[in-house]
């Protein structure tokens, strides 16, 4: 091949549409068709066993040796080569230049009716035909309408014509005339209402909708790809799901009724009726949109035949695709099937021999029975057209033609395509590659293909797609493009090549040869697996190495390394079919045939083994003795799963969400891979605690994920790249899953274990590093977050008391289960304080989980025990972490969530801590607000502005006086209630005056502190609770005193008289004084 020429010629030669190819290219790439059926009726799978070559068909049918009126249908699957064959017939006919035979070949060109008619009118034979100008204007007129308008016109025409049909049927007495009238008038009216709905119209106008299909037959600018599409409605166009039905909720009542009927039509019976009915309007719609009447087209052809008759000529009409005439096809058939003899002799029309291409489906559905019965012959082109050398020749001719310029082809054209003059392009690239001997006797180089590659690649296609068109578009063109423009990476990933059952040892050799160069590995695996024999063989032929069935020159020409496979001593007799071997074409040659089904490529029989391989064989033999051979079903399962992996390596997305089928095997294998890594890596060596590990396991994250996986992409700590190395490892787990049923007990498992062990050794550091997250060396912040969270909890529940700074907190507290308590019932903290603590303790079991983190993360695991209540704490690490937490002063910003933190279970601690820390300010302020009234009351009661001015004596004095006060009340029957617990309160005060002063001092300091952490620490000991007895007294006593005064006043008021009115006893005093004097005198008397 000559790449330089190929670059300019590839677009000209590699055309899937035969008609657009230049004649010389068409002939240069033409491979004789040898498998044609000649049939009398249309059969999908002909029972006929006799094949005819294209030449035989040409001579016996197309050339019309009997000069008969005939109508021949050429049918086959899309891409089978109908157009190619018809064009070859046309070329052959024209080249023979048969006297008085006009050969009209109508290609589908732009595949539209307009284009088709234009082709017809441009034919030289009918230049002088009457009314030609009128016809031409008619066809040109349709081109001015833009796509959107024309599509909407097509759509509107349907309901107009349906309405018209209903109107007419009302007037008709006998309504049974219409064989397609399966719908009731009610349904027809509902259908119109349904079609008129905007949403239904939008759906019909979509790219893959029925209107677009019909439009493609009307307009030349359609983007519709499938040229064999039938321009009509199909059953899926009327399939509606619940969502679409819901959208029609506000639609017309009739439209809704129709939609309901469609929605409930599970078996499609009703929809089939609707489709049959509406498709009866396709032709009228097309005709109206094309401004043609059915009679017009028939008239055109009748005029053509008459014109030719006038000229004394007959007509051989070759139509590539009858669907191009959709809308007027019945008129066309009428015109063509009308014989020139018998009752039609008076019409003076020429004899017409029609060779018409169509698909089987179109013929069955769109040909009326009267037309079907009048078909003279059917030429069937089977799908699997090429067999044996034909396929190689097909490829070889295209590869040869792209390397030939027009000038190179000129002599051959001038020789009227004589086989002996067929030009062969000089081999600029492709030395050492396979060649093929063609039916024309020429030996053509297949570069960039090998015969094995051709067979393998075609085998990978669906059987229904193994047609020239698809082989050309799916294999030849992309691979040639890759070889021309991307030679350094050929065969590249862009080709999406797939190798279902790569040879494991070969792949290992390749990986060993290429190291980490994934591109190289990929290329070599594809090359050896698809182009080569997919076997780990290296044989010497002459002075050449044949590695994996490919000449070493092939590797060199593609700048690929020579795979380091030990040479195998073998005799030439044992050499398998070598890709470089050249064999002359023989119809009976025993070449590999294209498989009938998409069966994985089977590798060729193993060659003799090298010494090292023999060692491996010995091992394998050992396992062979231990384990039975895998069942076919198991092998197939493994093969299918491996295909998925192969596709993944080639760039496809991999489905890991499914639990069933092959994808289920993949997801299970991935799970097993993860489980294996969890169990095999000594996590403690990487300072990853059991706690941390359990969090990964319980998270939605996997330890290892696959690149480009379908679900949870990014939810993995370590991504296995879609490369061959990963493929090799992953396949081990597929076998572990399927062959060993989640054990290593299967044949060859020792190799898999070895592969996995090597891989584990390579990746475990990376995995551990990924698991440890962003913080790298040292403790992970989530653990510090947990410590901080636990610390806050302990501050709140009073575990950490009498501390003025975090630095005073000791590590023992974090391992004491006793401090897991909630607040005591008599606590006097503010509501926010209690709520925060309650949230920490109760919400999601946060406190317990946090403590578990603290304990488990720093637990030095002893032996194999993973679940224990006895902890051996890594004191150094814990102390380090605790110190770091203390240094943060519990500032929220110090516990930011690492950007790459992906484990929800770890992230939780950051988030929970953030939420808690965010509330600390509020809690501290609220606690201060709660405490301030206590402090104010105390200071006011003792008339001091600082607690420093209060002494224990003052407190004791107060307590004593309070006691006396209450006693005085009782003793003096003052009508004031003395609280029952007053004595207890007073005694509490008397017993702890020092503590009370200390508590007030704590509160006073906290109130004046702006740092929330310090405030919380201060209030951690619940100083308010300490001052409650004295505060109650301070609060109650003024009230009691007021009540006493009130009571005393009342009593005074109740005395009821003015003390001034009472006797002053002056008279009595006088009397008594007199008596005293008398007594004095009396004594004197004695």
């Amino acid at each position, binding site marked *: 091949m000559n790449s330089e020429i190929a670059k300019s010629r590839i677009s000209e030669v590699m055309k899937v549409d035969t008609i657009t190819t230049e004649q010389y290219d068409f002939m240069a790439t033409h491979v004789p068709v040898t498998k044609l059926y000649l049939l009398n009726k249309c059969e999908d799978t002909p029972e006929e066993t006799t094949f005819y070559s294209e030449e035989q068909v040409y001579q016996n049918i197309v050339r019309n040796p009997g000069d008969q009126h005939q109508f021949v249908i050429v049918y086959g699957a899309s891409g089978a080569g109908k157009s190619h064959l018809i064009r070859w017939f046309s070329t052959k006919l024209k080249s023979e230049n048969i006297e008085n035979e006009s050969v009209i070949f109508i290609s589908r060109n732009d595949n539209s009716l307009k284009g088709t008619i234009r082709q017809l009118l441009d034919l030289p034979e009918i230049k002088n035909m009457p009314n030609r100008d009128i016809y031409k204007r008619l066809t040109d007129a349709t081109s001015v309408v833009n796509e959107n308008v024309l599509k909407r016109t097509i759509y509107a025409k349907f309901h107009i014509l349906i309405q018209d049909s209903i109107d007419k049927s009302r007037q008709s007495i006998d309504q049974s005339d219409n064989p397609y009238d399966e719908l009731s008038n009610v349904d027809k009216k509902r259908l119109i209402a349904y079609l008129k709905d905007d949403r239904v119209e939008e759906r019909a106008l979509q790219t893959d909708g029925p209107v677009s299909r019909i439009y493609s037959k009307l307009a030349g600018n359609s983007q519709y790809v499938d040229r064999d599409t039938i321009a009509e409605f199909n059953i899926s166009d009327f399939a509606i799901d619940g969502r679409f039905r819901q959208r029609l909720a506000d639609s017309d009542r009739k439209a809704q009724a129709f939609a309901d009927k469609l929605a409930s039509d599970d078996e499609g019976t009703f929809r089939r009726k609707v489709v049959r009915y509406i498709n009866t309007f396709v032709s009228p719609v097309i005709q109206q949109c094309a401004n043609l009447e059915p009679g017009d087209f028939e008239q055109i052809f009748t005029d053509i035949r008459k014109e030719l008759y006038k000229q004394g000529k007959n007509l051989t009409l070759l139509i590539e695709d009858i669907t191009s005439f959709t809308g007027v096809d019945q008129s066309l058939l009428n015109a063509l099937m009308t014989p020139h003899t018998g009752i039609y002799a008076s019409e003076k029309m020429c004899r017409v021999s029609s060779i018409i291409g169509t698909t089987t489906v179109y013929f069955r559905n769109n040909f009326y029975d009267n037309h079907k019965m009048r078909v003279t012959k059917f030429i069937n082109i089977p799908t699997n057209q090429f067999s044996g050398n034909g396929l190689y020749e097909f490829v070889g001719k295209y590869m040869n033609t792209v390397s030939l310029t027009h000038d190179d082809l000129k002599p051959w054209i001038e020789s009227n395509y004589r086989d002996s003059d067929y030009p062969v392009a000089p081999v600029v690239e492709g030395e050492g590659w396979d060649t093929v001997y063609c039916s024309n006797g020429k030996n053509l180089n297949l570069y960039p293909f090998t015969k094995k590659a051709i067979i393998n690649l075609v085998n990978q296609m669906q059987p229904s797609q193994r047609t020239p068109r698809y082989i050309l578009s799916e294999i030849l063109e992309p691979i040639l493009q890759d070889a021309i423009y991307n030679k350094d990476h050929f065969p590249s990933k862009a080709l999406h090549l797939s190798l279902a059952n790569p040879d494991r040892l070969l792949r290992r050799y390749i990986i060993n040869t290429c190291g980490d160069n994934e591109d190289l590995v990929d290329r070599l695996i594809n090359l050896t697996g698809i182009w080569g024999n997919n076997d780990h063989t290296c044989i010497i032929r002459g002075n050449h190495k044949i590695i994996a069935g490919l000449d070493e020159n092939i590797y060199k020409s593609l700048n690929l390394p020579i795979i380091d496979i030990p040479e195998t001593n073998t005799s030439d007799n044992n050499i398998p079919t070598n890709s470089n071997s050249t064999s002359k074409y023989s119809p009976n040659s025993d070449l590999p045939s294209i498989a009938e089904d998409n069966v994985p490529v089977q590798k060729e029989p193993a060659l003799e083994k090298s010494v090292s391989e023999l060692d491996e064989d010995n091992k394998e033999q050992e396992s062979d003795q231990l384990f039975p051979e895998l069942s076919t079903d198991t092998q197939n399962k493994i093969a299918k799963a491996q295909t998925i992996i192969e596709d993944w390596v080639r760039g496809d997305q991999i489905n890991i969400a499914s639990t069933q089928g092959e994808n289920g095997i993949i997801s299970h294998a991935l799970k097993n891979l993860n489980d294996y890594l969890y169990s095999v890596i000594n996590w403690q060596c990487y300072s990853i605690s059991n706690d941390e590990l359990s969090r990964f396991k319980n998270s939605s994250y996997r330890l290892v994920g696959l690149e480009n996986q379908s679900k949870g992409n990014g939810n993995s700590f370590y991504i296995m790249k879609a490369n061959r190395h990963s493929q090799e490892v992953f396949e081990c787990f597929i076998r572990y899953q399927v062959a060993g049923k989640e054990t290593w007990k299967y044949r060859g498992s020792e190799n898999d274990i070895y592969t996995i062990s090597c891989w584990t050794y390579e990746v475990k550091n990376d995995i551990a590093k990924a698991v440890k997250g962003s913080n790298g060396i040292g403790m992970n912040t989530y653990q510090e977050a947990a410590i901080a969270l636990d610390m806050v909890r302990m501050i709140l529940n009073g575990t950490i008391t009498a501390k003025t700074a975090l630095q005073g907190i000791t590590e023992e507290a974090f391992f004491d289960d006793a401090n897991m308590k909630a607040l005591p019932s008599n606590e006097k903290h503010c509501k926010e304080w209690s709520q925060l603590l309650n949230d920490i303790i109760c919400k999601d079991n946060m406190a317990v989980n946090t403590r578990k983190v603290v304990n488990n993360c720093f637990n030095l695991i002893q032996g194999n025990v993973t679940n224990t209540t006895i902890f051996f704490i890594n004191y150094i690490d814990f102390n380090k972490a605790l110190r770091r937490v203390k240094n943060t002063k519990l500032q929220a910003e110090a516990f930011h969530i690492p950007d790459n933190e992906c484990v929800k279970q770890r992230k939780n601690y950051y988030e929970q801590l953030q939420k808690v820390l965010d509330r600390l300010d509020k809690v501290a302020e609220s606690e201060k607000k709660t405490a301030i009234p206590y402090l104010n009351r105390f200071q006011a009661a003792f008339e001091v502005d600082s607690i420093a001015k209060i002494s224990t004596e003052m407190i004791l004095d107060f307590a004593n006086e309070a006691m006396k006060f209450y006693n005085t009340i009782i003793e003096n029957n003052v009508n004031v209630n003395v609280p029952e617990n007053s004595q207890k309160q007073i005694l509490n005060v008397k017993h702890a005056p020092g503590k009370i002063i200390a508590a007030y001092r704590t509160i006073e300091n906290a109130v004046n502190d702006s740092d929330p952490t310090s405030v919380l620490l201060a209030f951690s000991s619940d100083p308010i609770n300490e001052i409650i007895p004295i505060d109650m007294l301070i609060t109650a006593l003024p009230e009691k005193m007021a009540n006493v*005064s009130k009571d005393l006043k009342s009593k005074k008021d109740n005395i009821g008289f003015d003390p001034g009115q009472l006797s002053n*006893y002056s008279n009595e005093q006088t009397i008594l004084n007199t008596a005293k004097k008398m007594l004095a005198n009396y004594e004197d008397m004695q």
Partner: protein
Amino acid sequence: MITDKLRAAQQEIILTTEQVSEFRNKETQHKIDLNYTEEVKTAYSLVDLIIDLKTNTGFTVKPSTLSQIKETITFLSNFNEKRHVDVQTLKNGKDLMMSINKSLETEWKIYFTNSMSSTLKTLVLIQDITDKDVANYISDISNGKEWNSSFDSKLNSFRAMKSANDIIANLNINDEVNNFLLKVSKNRATLADLTDNVMKWVQENHLKSKIRLSF
């Protein structure tokens, strides 16, 4: 400071309680006061009595009783416009007075007996043999015997005694006569007791028919 307020409150309670206990209602207090006044007057009367008795009868109160009287008067003097007499105080005062009265009753009895017994005895012996109204004397004297008798009764007792003593003196009754009369009054007199001196005294006073002898 709250401690000071507590102290003040206690004082107020105590004071008010006192006031409340003192300042009963007007009627009650008035009654008490009337009793008190009566008690004061009684005390005064007592003092006046003992002085009068001293003056008129020679009755002298013992020093201990006198101290009691002084204390009682002092006790009763311990009331003023701020310190009113209460029921208890009054009772205490009355008790004191009762105690004094008991003491004086005893003392008076002794003093009265000592002063009156000889006279009375004699009056009893002679009441049947004399034409004088001895019985009235005896009655008068006896009327002042009790401490709770009025001062006039007491004073009449002593006056009657004086009059009786004059009558007795006029009868010249010596010891021998007196002994004879005593035995006659006890129905134990014998003829042997009717001595000459006795017969002489009988004749002189014309008492033969008035003296009866019996077995």
